[in-house]
């Protein structure tokens, strides 16, 4: 057999492998393609279409042009919901990440019982999104709840934290901060990758712990901080269960816990105004995309990449 034959066979074989790959890939990805079409990207496009209609699931959708999108700009309850959601996101996420980073710093450097502490702090992140914890929160921050019992012990007069529109949202912010365990674990993994020699060298040069934190830890951890920030902001925008359970599905008192998602749910699944709910869904997508884009843009100025 000549070298040419072998080469031809090789080329032939190579081509065959590539071709077979395409076919194999199609079958391996078939469920995922179907999911893309029917469950994720398809519905995203469909909801854009539905946004131009009036539709209550019973009568066929009726085209109404830009009415639903125009309504977004005049709907005052929606504007209030946006305010509530922005407050929730912009207050709870930085607080949550600060707690996560603070505790991660305490836990770093081979502290004894690390695994135990890590688990204890992580547990609330698993429980936090459940209805059960929302029920607990309703009691703890209620007028006769646990918090007021404890405050009473110190002689402080409490109030109904959840029934007061001024403080209802704060109880939900506390709940989100309470779930700092999962970003904490990501911080811990990041901290472990910072070489100890950096700190040793800095200590020899006489740098204080404080300046070590600002000049070594924080810059080297900034990609992780960025990742957590992007993820937790997206996550916080989607909060629903807690506000729903605590307010009994109303977003009250006085719409003070009316998250965007809760308003969308009410429009879509209580009033069956599917057209407006679709427009709201698209608007939410734009808001989250805008926040993420701003994050990525701002990252250029503060996130430090080693490589």
């Amino acid at each position: 057999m000549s070298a040419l034959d072998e080469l031809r066979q090789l080329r032939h074989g190579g081509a065959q492998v590539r071709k077979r790959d395409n076919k194999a890939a199609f079958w391996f990805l078939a469920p995922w393609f179907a999911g893309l079409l029917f469950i994720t990207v398809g519905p995203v496009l469909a909801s854009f279409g539905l946004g131009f209609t009036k539709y209550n699931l019973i009568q066929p959708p009726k085209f109404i042009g830009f009415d639903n999108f125009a309504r977004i700009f005049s709907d005052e309850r929606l504007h209030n919901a946006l305010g509530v959601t922005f407050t929730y996101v912009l207050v709870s996420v930085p607080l949550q990440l600060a707690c996560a980073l603070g505790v991660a710093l305490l836990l770093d450097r081979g502290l004894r019982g690390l695994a135990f502490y890590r688990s204890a702090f992580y547990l609330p992140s698993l429980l936090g999104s459940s209805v059960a914890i929302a029920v607990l929160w309703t009691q703890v921050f209620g007028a006769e709840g646990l918090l007021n019992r404890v405050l009473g012990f110190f002689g402080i007069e409490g109030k109904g934290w959840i029934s007061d529109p001024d403080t209802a949202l704060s109880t939900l912010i506390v709940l989100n901060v309470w779930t700092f365990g999962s970003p904490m674990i990501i911080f811990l993994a990041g901290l472990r990758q910072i070489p100890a020699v950096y700190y040793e060298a800095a200590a020899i040069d006489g740098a204080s712990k404080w300046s070590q934190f600002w000049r070594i830890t924080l810059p080297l951890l900034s990609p992780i901080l960025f990742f957590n920030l992007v993820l937790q902001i997206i996550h916080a925008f989607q909060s629903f269960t807690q506000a729903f359970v605590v307010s009994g599905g109303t977003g009250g008192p006085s719409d003070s816990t009316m998250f965007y998602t809760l308003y969308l749910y009410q429009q879509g699944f209580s009033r069956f105004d599917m057209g407006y709910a679709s427009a709201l869904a698209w608007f939410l997508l734009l808001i989250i995309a805008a926040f993420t884009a701003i994050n990525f843009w701002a990252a250029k100025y503060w996130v430090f990449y080693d490589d």
Partner: protein
Amino acid sequence: MTTDLRRRLSVPAKHLGLILIGFVMLYPVLWMIASSLRPGDEIFRSPGLILDSLQTENYVEGWNALTPSFGTYLVNSTILVLGCIIGNLVSCSMAAYAFARLNFSGKRWWFGIMLGTIMLPIHVIIVPQYVLFSQIGWVNTFLPLIVPKILATDAFFVFLMVQFIRGLPRELDEAARIDGCGHPRIFLQIVLPLMKPALATTTIFTFIWTWNDFFSQLIYLTDPDMYTVPVALRSFVDSTVATSWGSQFAMSVVSLLPIFLAFLIGQRYLVKGIATTGGK
């Protein structure tokens, strides 16, 4: 000498601080468990954890408060969770194998779309999805909740598994290919057995997230016979007077128990799963 002394003092101080933070954080949950075992009228009076006696009446009362009883909801949630776990394991591992090991046209593009869908909130797609599923009569079945998992829409797990497969030595599947194995066999007999840790992480996260998920279950399950634990718990809370905390707490504890068990069993995989997909 002084740094040594400072170090010796700072370590116990650190432990004290951490224990205090942990205690304050977990106190409400511990108190809920304690209160669920107290007679109803005592809950408001006792902010402590120590019990005088064990009362199980809250559990009996809560269990039978709705028709059907709470056992039905636990069974429903279990069926749903199992379906979602199987769906995720099969479909996500298949997709991950394709992305990690196969060469196909437009791969980078598809991979980008897959990553993009990780960030896609359910709220954006729920309305047309609901329209679709209600047209084909799937409302009040578990299908709208399980079928998306069978179709690999939990892209987070696809990504997790892609990362894992990329870390496996390629020599293994190349050797198998020379021996005449096709992709299905390489996938089933070589890659899949090696990716057990990633499968375990997927199982445990799917379990916890599905068990806790409220939004989509609230929307698709409106018939009490089909209620899952979170939907039933919420309906129970809404239907009772606010003072019957005892039975509400009891059923809350029941609903959290599986999560807690999953956490105890799967801690290692949970921590690893978060650290690998989050870290690098």
